[in-house]
């Protein structure tokens, strides 16, 4: 899927994550992460975000995330919401049951 517009979701509250996605003119995926738990969970957070991008079939995007110690489900949900907004699609709730 293609990024149609820049999108931003989430907040900077403790235990939340703020994610912005925009088109990547130079192609490919670029993820920039700031996190209070980067030393211990940085790789896990990037892996979660990459997985969601893949599930949306997004191949070109610039992702900026500011994580305030969110749990994995929150990161996943915020990322899914960001992808929906940026691609102008609705979330496929049926996919959840697979």
């Amino acid at each position, binding site marked *: 899927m293609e990024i149609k517009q820049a999108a931003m979701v989430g907040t900077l509250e*403790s*235990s939340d994550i703020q994610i912005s996605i925009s088109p990547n003119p130079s192609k490919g995926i670029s993820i920039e992460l700031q996190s209070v*738990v980067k030393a*211990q*969970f940085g*790789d896990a957070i990037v892996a979660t975000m990459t997985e969601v991008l893949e599930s949306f079939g997004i191949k070109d995007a610039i992702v900026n995330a500011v994580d305030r110690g969110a749990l994995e489900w929150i990161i996943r949900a915020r990322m899914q919401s960001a992808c929906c907004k940026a691609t102008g699609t609705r979330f496929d709730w049926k996919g959840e049951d697979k």
Partner: protein
Amino acid sequence: MINAVGRELPEKIGDYIVKPYAGAKETIDAEKTVASRRKPSKRAVNGTKLMPDLKEAIKKTGLRDGMTISFHHCFREGDYIIGLVLSAIKELGIKGLRFAPSAVVNIKNPSIVDFVKDGTINRIQASGIRGELGDAVVEGLELAEPVILRPHGARPHTIETGDLSIDVAFIGASAADDFGNCTGQVGPNACGSLGYSFIDATCAENVVVITDNLVPYPCVPISISQMYVDYVVKVDQIGDSAKIGAGAARRTKNPRDLLIAQRAADVMAASRLFKDGYSFQTGAGAISIACTDFLAEHTEKAGIVASYALGGMTANIVEMHKKGLVNTLLCSQSFDAVAARAIVENPNIIEIDNSMYANMFNKSCALDKLNFGVLGALEIDVDFNINILTGSNGEMMSGIGGGPDVADGADISIVTLPIVRGRIPSVVDRVFTCCTPGSSVAVVVTEAGIALNPKHKSYEMLKEDLQKAGIKTVSIEELLKIAYSLTGVPKPIETTDKITCIVEYRDGTVIDVIREIKRD
């Protein structure tokens, strides 16, 4: 070598010879006489010890390059004394001092890091170095030797063995007379107990009392006597009144913290030791304060009276006393304005020497009789070892305080903590820094369950009492599983080989070291 809590330690760290922690001790017989640098000498000239300013007093003490200076942290984050004294020392051009306060709290203006960078200080020993200084140290701030961190009970012992020999002790006081009788209990900047300073007053070679409230002779009450004081200096302000005497902390509304506090109080109330004359120490964290309230309810309901509360006092412990739920408060520290002023108003609220509170090398200390001790922690691991110093990124979060002393001294030591904080698990496989050995921890209380330590001396008794009261327990491994299922398994923090801090246990042995954090 590996110590009794499985920590890898070098034999020597610079000139520091490592005595590895070897397990709990029952009795101790020291070979040496108590070391004091105090000299018989007369200081009052023309009927006063008052010096015109700090610089003059510092010159009189003969402070030179490389000597050791000490302070107390009873003014907490409101303290101006450390900044005033270090600035005066710097202006006098004295360098390379060993800085040995009872603790460093987060003092930003002036920054202690700057006094390290300009060479005024080159060595540090304290119970904690919270804030800017601590963060700079774990990031590799250049010092002549690693910082030595030790619990409150270990400091007086280290001074008495002569291992920490103080040249000049600077003692801030909220009231003092011109002969040096002083206290923290009265005056506009009252901080309450001066518990940490007694050992400095009796053992340092020079004692300088600093006040902003010079009172007619004699100062009443007398916490520290004129017989130990060399010089007195009056300054404009010893601290920020709002931060020294912060009002009583409001009870937390966080339902998770309240649940943990309630459960910790339930554990105490279920114990057979919870009977007329029981004793407790709860402390000043949000969970601890709420726990005191729940303990008061249990005490009232049971129709019993506690014999004493110990350690750092809060407004709600004072309230328990006023309600007749606890006979005596032994204050080594006062955590808020209510507790600070309560000592002069109530004959059964007593200021005590921090050494009487927690020093295991005394003929006895008050902790030896304590029934219940409630402790906070950043992390606890499957061996019940506690980390109270370093956060998830290896940063310095807190001081050791009296935690290791309380855990060891109390019949039943209760660690209270939420199972996760944000994405950081609090129950872990292995704590990053071990401050308190798990063998001294009886029970851990979280919102996800209560776990008893099968290796603790009170295990069988507590297990039976909790069963009788219908309080369910889980294993620590179960708590670990719950924590990791929420957060994922954290990647270990990477360090270099450089040791930035040595963590001593209450008996003066090394329980752990903190290595410099590796950053990309």
